[in-house]
């Protein structure tokens, strides 16, 4: 899977600026750039191109590449006879080269007419081969060398298309952030055309397809969420279950949290676990079994499962509770279950949980806390409300598992970029799974997350992932102190990973927390917390 490098363009331009990462130009130049609308990324690489011309330049570069590959005979002529213009003025340089070759020059009819405002999107500096003053300080032999390089390297169509797709995605996202929806729409059309030439079964094509869908949803359906969050509870549970089977992230979350809870409950006879998202209750059989086998015998276990209400009168929470109770009965663990139906976590009040003061409480949140981060200025911040009532329960342990990504940034483009990297990595890791229909349904599960991150705003956007460092700050500020997860948890996680047939997963320990990732990019982080016993909220670290 190729990830984009912002300093290169289309893979086919001259080799002189292959991997220079952005060194910021001096401030005066930056101001000049802004005035002329010069693209900042390319400026850092030494090219001056207007942002509004980017697409056109890219198209012409592609055409130039095609021409060069197709007619190598002309290239030698290029190298010897022609005066080369300064390639840092990329637009005119490409144009001059194109006009040198036997391809017909570009014609104005190709400029896109914006149907709404009826203006050409492109500036006038583009008419063919206007003789500039040649800035001759180019090294001609260097040009020839770079041309030769392009002769010998036959670009893989697939890889180029992949890179182009990523660039176009970024361009489209930037247009969306700017509010330029007409340009974004044309970008979308181009991307959809490009998708037909790319393998969409795996790799960048598949991820790009999902992001293109999400972008088009945002552009055409608005940011209200629409059908993204409309999946029924039953569907969501099913997708979740398949995601659980297809890749180890949820198993890792469950096993690590269980290990921490088991250790926290050591020596206690009356224990109560509060699960913020029960789903099918897949986390709890292993805990029940471990409690059954602990030295000293099992405690009395109470489980309170929170979940969305079932629409058709079925009480799915209760059904899960019955199943868990049957399992507990088989292994001789005294068990009691209580279901709390709530469509949003912030609607749950602590009295609903009926916590007995004599019992030890564990709070388990698997990818639920980030949903509370949407801020509505009219209400108290939901995350603070929930964290404060958790604290009031004085739990022995609170296990928190969250996606390790920064998808809650205010700027859309930053969020989009981060999501592209994160979900590309996650899809890569999913390639290792061969079991159908797990894999297909797991992909739908991930796709829904992508759609929510990209196409929703406000209260509709619930997938507000934040990285572990931010959670640490937030939880410490809310009156919790971290508990180290311990070597048993690490050992168990490592063993679990080794069982999965893919070699790319990695468990890392991060200051007492565990993260699971794919090829050293952490994707999910597990941590454990305990309420600070004194009354102060800000506990100095």
């Amino acid at each position: 899977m190729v990830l984009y490098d912002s300093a290169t363009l289309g893979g086919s331009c001259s080799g002189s600026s292959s991997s220079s990462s952005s060194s910021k130009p001096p401030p005066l130049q930056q101001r000049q750039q802004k005035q002329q609308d010069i693209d900042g990324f390319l400026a850092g690489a030494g090219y001056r191109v207007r942002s509004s011309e980017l697409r056109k330049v890219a198209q012409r570069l592609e055409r130039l590449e095609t021409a060069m590959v197709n007619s190598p005979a002309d290239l030698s002529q290029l190298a010897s006879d022609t005066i080369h213009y300064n390639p840092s003025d990329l637009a005119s340089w490409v144009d001059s080269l194109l006009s040198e070759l036997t391809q017909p020059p570009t014609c104005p009819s190709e400029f896109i007419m914006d149907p709404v405002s009826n203006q050409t999107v492109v500036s006038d500096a583009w008419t063919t081969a206007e003789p500039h003053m040649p800035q001759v300080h180019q090294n001609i032999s260097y040009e020839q060398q770079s041309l030769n390089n392009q002769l010998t390297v036959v670009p893989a169509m697939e890889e180029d298309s992949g890179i182009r797709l990523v660039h176009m995605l970024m361009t489209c996202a930037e247009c969306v952030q700017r509010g330029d929806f007409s340009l974004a729409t044309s970008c979308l059309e181009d991307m959809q055309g490009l998708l037909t030439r790319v393998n969409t079964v795996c790799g960048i094509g598949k991820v790009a397809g999902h992001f293109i869908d999400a972008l088009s949803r945002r552009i055409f359906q608005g940011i209200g969420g629409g059908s993204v969050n409309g999946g029924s509870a039953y569907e969501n549970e099913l997708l979740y279950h398949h995601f659980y089977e297809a890749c180890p992230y949820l198993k890792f979350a469950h096993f690590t949290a269980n290990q921490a809870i088991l250790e926290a409950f050591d020596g206690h006879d009356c224990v109560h676990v509060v699960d913020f998202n029960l789903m099918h209750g897949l986390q709890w059989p292993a805990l029940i079994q471990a409690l059954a086998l602990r030295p000293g015998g099992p405690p009395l276990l109470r489980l309170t499962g929170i979940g969305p209400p079932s629409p058709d009168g079925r009480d799915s929470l209760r059904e899960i509770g019955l199943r868990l109770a049957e399992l507990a009965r088989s292994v001789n663990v005294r068990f009691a279950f209580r279901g709390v139906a709530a469509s949003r976590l912030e609607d749950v009040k602590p009295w609903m949980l009926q916590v007995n003061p004599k019992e030890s409480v564990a709070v388990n949140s698997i990818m639920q806390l980030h949903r509370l981060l949407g801020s509505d200025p009219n209400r108290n911040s939901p995350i603070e409300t929930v964290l404060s009532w958790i604290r009031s329960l004085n739990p022995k342990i609170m296990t928190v598992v969250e996606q390790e990504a920064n998808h809650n940034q205010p700027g859309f483009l930053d969020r989009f970029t981060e999501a592209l990297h994160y979900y590309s990595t996650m899809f890569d890791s999913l390639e290792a799974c061969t079991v159908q229909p797990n894999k297909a349904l797991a992909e739908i599960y991930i796709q829904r997350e992508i759609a929510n991150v990209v196409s929703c705003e406000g209260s509709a956007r619930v997938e507000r992932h934040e990285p572990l460092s931010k959670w640490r700050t937030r939880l410490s500020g809310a009156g919790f102190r971290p508990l180290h997860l311990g070597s048993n948890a690490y050992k168990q996680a490592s063993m679990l990973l080794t069982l999965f047939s893919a070699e790319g997963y990695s468990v890392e320990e991060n200051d007492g927390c565990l993260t699971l990732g794919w090829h050293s990019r952490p994707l999910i982080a597990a941590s454990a917390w305990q309420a600070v016993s004194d009354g102060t909220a800000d506990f100095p670290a």
Partner: protein
Amino acid sequence: MVENHSREDHETGGENKEKRPKFFINDHVDILIEILECLDGRSLCVAASVCRLWCTIARNDSLWENLCFRHVSPPPSSVRSVVLALGGYKRLYTGCVRPVRSRLGRVRRATWAGDEVQLSLSLFCVDYYERLGGSNSNGRLVEKSSPSSLMFLCKPVNV
């Protein structure tokens, strides 16, 4: 070892009394059990198809219990009731312990030996729970193509 005893694969010992071998393994079930306890899982399954007596013995869960805990210290007695409740040792071994052991065996970490069985037990329990869903619910919760949490162990390892 199994091949040597395949000679005894007849149940009527009546006709050849004068030529009857002095030692007939099926008469000494306790020795037979001792021998079968030494077998690995696959051989045990093969042994089960020798004759009815061997089949009965090989199905005995205690043989499989032995297999599960062969290279580790014997577990507390409470484990047995739990495992039997969840489906028995044979199922635990064939479904969990064997694939877990073979996959973790590639990594060769000494500290993992006892924990392999613990992990297998946890996975076994999740599997039991999923099987519960299939039989008890009205079919809507868990569909026919319901995922089994042990399926990832059954797939060939992509080394």
